[in-house]
């Protein structure tokens, strides 16, 4: 349930750590996994960011930047067609450019399987796991 002012973790190596949702693209409802949003970078990842090598954390975005992003995890339950439901402990997103390609080169963390249905195959292939 990502809406205006929602704070999300950014789980790629674009350089952003925390972002704030300022708009949900293309729909009037709240955003769920696989939806596109517009975010403002609120916190940058430091040099000693956990789980990332110094080479891969090339800072591509800065605090205050306005970027597009794809939601990859939500705290809100997401139900699937077979009746199963998935829920994560945090809200997370991956930054993309306007064409839809990811800004970072790596995704570290689990992403929701709904991305496949919404055709974010690039992000899925970058992710280490999906649930």
């Amino acid at each position, binding site marked *: 349930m990502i809406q205006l002012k929602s704070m999300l973790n950014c789980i790629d190596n674009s350089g952003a750590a925390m972002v704030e949702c300022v708009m949900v693209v293309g729909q009037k409802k709240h955003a769920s996994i696989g939806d596109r949003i517009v975010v403002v970078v609120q916190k940058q990842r430091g040099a000693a960011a956990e789980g990332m090598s110094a080479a891969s954390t090339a800072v591509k975005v800065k605090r205050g930047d306005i970027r597009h992003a794809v939601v990859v995890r939500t705290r809100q339950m997401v139900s699937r067609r*077979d009746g*199963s439901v*998935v829920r*994560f402990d945090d809200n*997370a997103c991956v930054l993309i450019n306007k064409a839809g390609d990811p800004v970072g080169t790596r995704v570290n963390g*689990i992403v929701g399987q709904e991305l496949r249905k919404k055709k974010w195959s690039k992000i899925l292939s970058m992710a280490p*796991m999906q649930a």
Partner: protein
Amino acid sequence: MNTALLVRRPLGCLKASLRQTRQQNRVFPNRHMATATATASKRGPIPSGVSIDDHNFYRIIDPKTKKTRTAFAVYTPPETTSHSSTTTTTKKRSLTLPKLISPPADPLPALHAQQIKRMDPTGARTALFAKTRTAARVGDILMVTHRRGGEPFAGVLLSIRRAGIDTAILLRNHLAKVGVEMWYKIYNKNVAGIEIVKRAKKRARRARLTYMRKPKHDMGSVSEVVLAWRKMRRVVATSKAASKAKVDAKAKKAGKAAGAKKAK
């Protein structure tokens, strides 16, 4: 235009006439001339313009055109049909309806039982989440495998939502340091298997362990427990297979020996 139709489909008119006879059959089931005349005299006052044709079938004839303007049948409710044996006149007048069986007071449990029987013919899933000592309980570590492949999901059983065919379980685990919770329907055909990886040491004193979402009580990842269990299971399976193979080999040898003796 009609002639053209006939040329194209010479048996078209036959079909129409057949349909008419079928409709008549439906409207006047088991109609006899004798009954029609006999009942007509016994009837009470008939409203003007309404002619009684057969049993309780009324037809209103238009006085000008002498054609049937409208027609309707009067059916007696099932209670009166069953009690009408006392008076012969009412018995004759009533159309015999098939006796209606009243539906069961609560049909939903029966429906659920039927559906569960269809989705789980062996009763294994029902037994796994029944309220018995051997069944899986809240706090156990379970593993769910999918029919479509993909990695099986293991986690702590937080709660069981018992709702007939919709019965579902909530599993919680940590994947890549992020807590993930999954609800699974236990009677889903896509769920290939549900296995108990580890039993809880103590019986949980709550029905739903939602407190395990808090950092203080969070179990963390269960992947190590699952790995250990898998390793152990593989050892057991291989040892079993080995012993079975040995037995088979012995039997084969014995059989061969017997065959050789017979040949001698």
